[in-house]
Structure formats: structure tokens, C-alpha cells
């Protein structure tokens, strides 16, 4: 079941055939249905239905005298690490228990300005550290297709909100695949824009040089419209780029005739699940059939991505999470003196995975280890970025790869952190290189969705969307079978 599309909602609401209030009421009803019972999917961690309805009502009132916003009447779900004014922002962590931000993230403000109505905050791996949405202080979120399985993560709640038709679009965040991988596991579209394309102001930082707000959509068009609404320069984020944002939905009919699609061989290793390979091959054949030129390419430093990622991201996280000290806001536990308060607060407030990464990050930044780990990782990171630059400079417009090495795994199946980290193997590279990437459904295995990934040069999301539109249309129902 999917929600009405962003385009349809906008048109119908603007024409007065439906009201935003009715749409939000329906979304809330669906959210209650999805969340109900022992098998509830645990999508939202905070909702303020009354406030959402109030906002929808206010939208109806000002409809007459304003041009309809790009997302008029569209209910949206927001990952719990993005600051909202009326609902708490807790990052799925006990340490931010009850914390309500006194300011609003730029992306949320832009959504509301475009006429969208945030209806709730979605579950996530604590501080976005995880690939399964199992590691939340609020318990795991379940995959809507098989409730015994994970939805992927860390933006699992947002992915499920879209996959279950509560909302057509939702905001997630990416540090190393946290939108694309759950999109793949849930059979929807997930976009990680170019680093700097979308403001991070109000996104609670995990690893600042990798973090980017991402967008889930039921379809490529929903995702394109969602990204268009939140993208663009923000003077409050010094790393956001002042580069014009094109209308991504303009690529809907652009086709792939003159497109050169690269297949990086490192993403199709011998060990790749043959069924996933088969679905990828079929998608590639569709693109070829539409007139795209297919070329095998190489990104030779791909195997460095996971080790580099798991040095850079924890290093930055160890510093970013230092502010959660029990002094000014959030959870606090008294202890013996100042140091005791810090220790009690942080060791109780953070979960195991967050603690592991803080320790890892503190270690790699320590005097005597900095050069061997952090500095070396940054050097390796630039090699990974160079790989992409070289391939795109050679005339390749977009790359196509599998999004994840597997389909959604059972809840509790992966207990070894390193094994969990490997589920980011095809996605972490885009974050390290800063290039845009997205996942879209390309078929199912044993009923479970499989995602295909498109990657493009910096700030060329438009070309990536054009390819995605074409592939989505060519695959049709095949993508969900």
C-alpha cells in the first residue's frame, strides 16, 4: 500500500478537491494502524497528531492567497535526529530523553514552507549508528514486508513510514548508507545528495564530514520533489554549497539515450549473492535497452572504504557527542563530583554501539595514534574520492551497483559489529567521496526487496534522477515482484 504521490497531493489540494486536514487525518490513521498491536512496526518515536492537524488546518486557510508550494498538502515523517520545534528530538537515545529543540532544522523549515506537514519523528539506530534500526532506546523497528526482519538502518523508521504508505516522503540522514540501505530493504527510493547540497543545520551531527540529510520517496518522482524542496544553500551551514538547484522532476522524460552508465567491477565481486547479481544484470539490460551505453569501470580503492569509514566516522563522532555531558540538557545522572556525573550520565545515557564508536574514535585521535589512523584514513579517503573523479572524468555519467550485499536480515541475526558494518560496503564510498547516490527497487528475492544504486558526480543529482526515472519506468511492476 502506498500513499498518494506528492504530485497528486499537491494538485488535488491546490484544486480544493481534498484538504490537507483530510490527508493528515488519513496519514495519522494509517500510522496508528501500522503501529498497533504486538506486531507493531515501531515506526514513530514521537507524534503530535493534534499539532499536525492544526498545521494542516492552517495550511488550508492560507491556500487561497498563496501560490501552492511544491509539497502542498504532503504529510512527511522526520528522522528523530533532525530538530523540530513541537516534537522532541532524541536521536533514538536515552541521553536526549525528553529534549525538545528550541529551534528548527533548515530542512524542516523548508518542508513546511513548501506546504508539507511533519506528522512525526521516526525511529532510528541511536545517533544514526547502525544499519538495522535495532539499536534504538525505543526498541527495534520492524520490516513491513517481513516483521521478523530489520528494515535496515539507521533511518529505518522513515523508510517504513514511506513503505507502509503513511507518507509519500520522509527525511532520513546518511553518514554511510543510512538512507539507501533501508530504502533497498523496504522496497522504496532513497537518496543521499551530494555533500553540501542540503543544509545540515539542525541535523544532530554524527560525523560532520560525512553526514547529509537524505530523502525517502515511494517513487523516484516523490524523492525528486522531496529533495528539490529541501536542497540549496543555507548560510547557517558553512559546508553547504551555493550552487543552484535544478528541478529534478524535469528529468522524468529525459531518458538515457546519451547516457554512459559505468559498472564498477569492485561492486560485483565473485562473492556477491548470484541472485542479487542477476537482478542487477536485468536492470542494466533495461538501461541498455533504453539506449544507454554500458561500460565496465574500476574504482580500485573501494576495499578501503569500510576501514576508512570506521576510523573517520567514529573519530568525528567522539567529538560531536562530547556535548551530551549532562550539564545543559537531556539526561543526567549524578555521580561522585563532576567526573562522576560525566561517567554516570554518559555510560548510562549512551547505548553499547554508541559507546563502542566513541571509544574507537577517541582512540584513533589520541596522541601517538593520530598519524597511524586518522591521518592515514584521510589520505585513503582522498584516494577513494579520486577513483570517482577519474571515472566520471573519463566520460561516465552515472554508475550502477547493488545497494546492499544482502536483503533484509532477521532481527537479532547479526551480533558481530564488524559483520554489521559490512552491510555498508557498497554505500559508504559515496559518503566518503561526497558524491550523490540513490537506491531504487529493482526486484525481489524470496519476497524481500533488492535495491539498485545509482551514483553521479558532485552536484549532478539531475542526471542521476533522469536515469532513475527511466529505470523505474522500464522495470515497472517487475521492481516489486
Amino acid at each position, binding site marked *: 500500500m502506498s500513499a498518494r504521490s506528492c504530485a497528486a497531493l499537491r494538485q488535488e489540494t491546490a484544486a480544493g478537491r481534498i484538504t490537507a486536514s483530510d490527508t493528515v487525518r488519513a496519514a495519522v490513521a494509517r500510522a496508528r494502524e501500522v503501529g498497533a498491536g504486538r506486531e507493531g512496526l515501531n515506526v514513530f518515536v514521537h507524534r503530535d497528531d493534534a499539532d499536525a492537524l492544526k498545521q494542516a488546518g492552517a495550511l488550508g486557510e492560507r491556500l487561497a492567497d498563496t501560490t501552492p508550494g511544491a509539497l502542498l498538502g504532503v504529510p512527511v515523517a522526520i528522522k528523530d535526529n533532525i530538530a523540530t520545534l513541537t516534537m522532541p528530538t532524541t536521536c533514538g537515545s536515552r541521553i536526549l530523553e525528553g529534549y525538545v529543540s528550541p529551534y528548527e532544522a533548515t530542512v524542516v523549515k523548508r518542508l513546511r514552507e513548501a506546504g508539507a506537514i511533519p506528522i512525526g519523528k521516526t525511529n532510528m539506530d541511536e545517533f544514526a549508528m547502525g544499519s538495522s534500526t535495532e539499536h534504538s532506546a525505543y526498541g527495534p523497528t520492524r520490516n513491513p514486508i517481513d516483521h521478523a526482519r530489520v528494515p535496515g538502518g539507521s533511518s529505518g523508521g522513515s523508510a517504513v513510514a514511506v513503505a507502509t504508505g503513511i507518507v509519500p516522503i520522509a527525511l532520513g540522514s546518511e553518514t554511510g548508507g543510512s538512507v539507501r540501505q533501508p530504502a533497498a530493504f523496504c522496497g522504496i527510493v532513497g537518496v543521499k545528495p551530494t555533500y553540501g547540497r542540503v543544509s*545540515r543545520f539542525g541535523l544532530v*551531527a554524527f560525523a*560532520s564530514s560525512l553526514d547529509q540529510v537524505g530523502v525517502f520517496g515511494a517513487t523516484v518522482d516523490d524523492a525528486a520533489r522531496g529533495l528539490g524542496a529541501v536542497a540549496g544553500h543555507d*548560510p*547557517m551551514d558553512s559546508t553547504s554549497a551555493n550552487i543552484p538547484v535544478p528541478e529534478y522532476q524535469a528529468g522524468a522524460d529525459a531518458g538515457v539515450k546519451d547516457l554512459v552508465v559505468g559498472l564498477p567491477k569492485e561492486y560485483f565481486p565473485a562473492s556477491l549473492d548470484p541472485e542479487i547479481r542477476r537482478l542487477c544484470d536485468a536492470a542494466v539490460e533495461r538501461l541498455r535497452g533504453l539506449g544507454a551505453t554500458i561500460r565496465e569501470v574500476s574504482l580500485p580503492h573501494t576495499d578501503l572504504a569500510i576501514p576508512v569509514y570506521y576510523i573517520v566516522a567514529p573519530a568525528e563522532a567522539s567529538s560531536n557527542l*562530547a556535548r*551530551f555531558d549532562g550539564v545543559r540538557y537531556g539526561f543526567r545522572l549524578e555521580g561522585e563530583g563532576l567526573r562522576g556525573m560525566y561517567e554516570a550520565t554518559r555510560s548510562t545515557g549512551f547505548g553499547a554501539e554508541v559507546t563502542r564508536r566513541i571509544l574507537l574514535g*577517541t582512540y584513533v585521535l*589520541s596522541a601517538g595514534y593520530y598519524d597511524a589512523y586518522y591521518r592515514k584514513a584521510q589520505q585513503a579517503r582522498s584516494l577513494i574520492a579520486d577513483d570517482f573523479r577519474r571515472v566520471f572524468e573519463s566520460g561516465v555519467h552515472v554508475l550502477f551497483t547493488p545497494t546492499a550485499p544482502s536483503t533484509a536480515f532477521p532481527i537479532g541475526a547479526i551480533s558481530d559489529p564488524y559483520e554489521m558494518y559490512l552491510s555498508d560496503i557498497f554505500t559508504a564510498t559515496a559518503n566518503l567521496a561526497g558524491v550523490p547516490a540513490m537506491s531504487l527497487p529493482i526486484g525481489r528475492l524470496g519476497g524481500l526487496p533488492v535495491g539498485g544504486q545509482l551514483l553521479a558526480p558532485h552536484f549532478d543529482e539531475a542526471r542521476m534522477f533522469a536515469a532513475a526515472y527511466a529505470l523505474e519506468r522500464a522495470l515497472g511492476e517487475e521492481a516489486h515482484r
Partner: protein
Amino acid sequence: MTATAPSRTVNLDAWEMVVGLEVHVQLKTRTKLFCSCSADFGAAPNANTCPVCLALPGALPVLNERAVGLATRAALALNCTVQPVSIFARKNYFYPDLPKGYQISQFDKPLALDGWIEIGTRAAGSPIRIGITRVHMEEDAGKSVHDRFPGVTAIDLNRSGVPLIEIVSEPDIRSAEQAGAYLRVLKQILEYVDVSDVNMEEGSLRVDANVSARRRGETKLGTKTEVKNMNSFSGVERALEVEFARHVGVLEAGGMIEQQTMLWDGTAVRPARSKEGSHDYRYFPEPDLPPLILATEWIDQVRKDLPELPAARRARFAEDYKLSEYDIEVLTANARLADYYESVARAHGEPKAAANWVMGEVMATLKTSGEDVARFRVRPADLASLLGLVRDGVVSHTAAKQIFTRMVATGDPPAQIAEREGLIKIDDDAQLAVWLEEVIAENPAEAERLRNGEKKLQGVLIGAVMKKSKGRADPKKLNQLLTARLTS
């Protein structure tokens, strides 16, 4: 353990003091370094705060361009090379008044490197030059308030994010006196280029000192300690003397100096409680801020816009106004006083007379009122016209002082005051003769004695006329008339 003096008599002269200073200076910006909160001193606790300087989740820093301009200006005034690319870095440590758990500073790629200042002249005549290792930008932390609420510490984050520069000297300083001279010259330069209030009481200038001792002739540096918490330049000098003596005492007794932070309490140094030296700050480049890239043309423009620095101004005052060394020192103490003097001197055309008035009446008045010369009611042009009235014989020197007092009180132009108060000098022979005759008639004995050669009585009689004329009589003319009258 405290130390006020070495435990036994030691020979300090056999040892050399080696000092490097780290000076933190608050830049004179309206807003903080990474947010638009006011950087003003003295607001109610936590009044000047926002999500950025409170380190709320999701907030991000945005660099204040004005602060970069001031920091660059300071660095150039200290003869540093400003780097085309510098990098902000995170200095990580936990403290309640450090809200992010890290301070945004600069580490291995600071704003500026390799500067120097001259702090005086050696006996042999060569200048004493102190190297400046680096100038970097950073944000201030908040303030922990321990004495406001019993049993708890309160945090005031008004200072959090206020822009600072840290100026690190080479270990070129060899005495407490040189350290004092370095600080005074540094303060004067920073005042001249108008980048900071450089006020130690308000905390806009803070000094940490690294000190070590070595035997004279030794070239290797001894183990240093860092002395903090001095709140005046003389406090720095005294703290250095005390800490140096402590080092020498330990070393002469065959002991070792432990590298640690010492706190000055006004009379003695004691080790800081926390082992600050053992901190691992885990510096890494600040990912929320791109590298700071400064175009050469921009740096050149800042250099061109630098005002005249104290040394250049002193040289020019000697050349242009032929003033004594002492006058120059006094008049160039700060840029505003020098500007004031220079305006008076230029408008009046007689530099020495201008210097006498500025150093005399003007500075005495300012000292009494505590006012800054930049806001002094008597503007240079008015003072110059008063000096003109004196030179042209329109008013007497005595009357000029009265007029000046009225100018301070009213701000009116001197000619108007002189007119209104009847202070214009009277050189009309007829009127002067009338007064003179009256005085001679009133003091016949004195007049007679003067006629008989008792020259000192001339002054007495002239004084009596001045009194009669309420200071308006032209004393020169009066002298001539009296001499003529009594010798005829």
C-alpha cells in the same frame, strides 16, 4: 606546596631566566566568532547565548568575517606572515563551561606565523627583538561561577564563542622586566591597530607564561612550567621572579623541575590541581568549517589599511615636531592621544607649545575626570585656536588657563569665552597708564624703592596692575610702561 622564595640562599645571577608568553586577546567585534550573539562584556548571565554557543544538538558554526579581518590586522602589525590557507581545529576536552566538549581553535595551520616586536634597546644600542611564533584564532569558553550558589557551580555562557587571538612568543624573553616590556609594547600595538580593548581587568587580555631556568652559558632549554592566573603586567613580572627563583632553588639543590601548570595567587605560585599538562586534546581539523582561504590581494589591502604603528609614529614625531624623547613617549602612549596632539600641533603650527598644553592642561584634566581623550570635550581645533590667541597676544597665558577651564565646562570656542568673560588682553596704553598711576599712588613706598633700583619690586607693582585688570593687562607692555614711567 607553595613557593614565595627559594628555600635557601641561592645565586640567582648564575642562572638565566627563559620565558615565552602566550597572550590571549579578545577581538573587538560586535558579535561572537561563530554566531550572531553579542560579544559584549557585562550582560546578565547567559543573556548572550543561542543554539550555536550553547552547543545545542544540530547547531553549526559560521565564521565571523569581521573577526578574521581584525585577527589579520593584528598579525600584520606584529610583523607576522599571514597564511593564505589556515585551518580551524577542534581541541577536545570535557569541562562544564566548554559546551561543545571542544574548543574551535587553530592548531597545525594557524592564521599567521613568524613575527616579531621590538621591546627596547640594549646597552650596546641594538634593538631587543622578541620573536612571535604564531597568531591563531579561537573561541573563548564560558565561565564557571563557583561562589554564587552554595554547594554548586553555575555556568555563564556569555563568553562562550567570543573571538580571541592567541599570540605565542618565542622563548626569547630573558627577564621579568623584559616580559613586562613585551606586554606593554604588545598592548600598545594592539591598541594602535584598534583590534581589542586589551583590558586585563575585563579579561580582554590574558597572559600565560612559560618559564624555565638554565645556567648562564648553557644553550639547551631547561624544563619549563606554565604560570597562569596573573591579572596585571606587574603581576606577571612578580610571578616570573618567584617561579624563576623556585626553579633555581630546586635545580641548585640537585632537584628536577616537574613540567606542570602553576597558579599565581598574587604573592606565591602553587601547582594547579588538575594535571593540565597530561591532557590529550585530540586535535583534528574542524569538519564543520571549510579551510580559511585568504586572497593575497585581501591580505595586502589589510596591510595597506594598517594605521601608523607606535615605533613609526615615535620616529615621525621626532622628525616632524622635534620633540624631546620624553614628550614623544608621553604623547604616543596611545593612538588617540597621539592623534589629538597631532591635530592640535598641525592646526596651531607650533609643536612644542601644543605639546606643553596637551601634556599639561589636557592630560591633567583627563586624569581628574577619567575621560578618554577621544571623547574629550575640548576638540583639537578649539585648543589650537586658544593657543593662537595666546601666541597673537589676544589673551594672556593666565587668561588662557581660565578660558581652557571654561572650554572644558561648556565646550564653547575660546574666542567666544574670552569675549564673554572679558578676558581679552588690554594693551591700550591709555588704560594701562591709568591703572599704573593708580597702583603707584596706592603703593608710593614700593614705587620709590623701585625708582631707587630695587628691581624686584617691579614684579610687585606689575602684579598689582594685573590684579586690577583681572589678568587682562598685557604684562610685556606694562613692563615697558612702568620702566619708562619710573626712569623718566
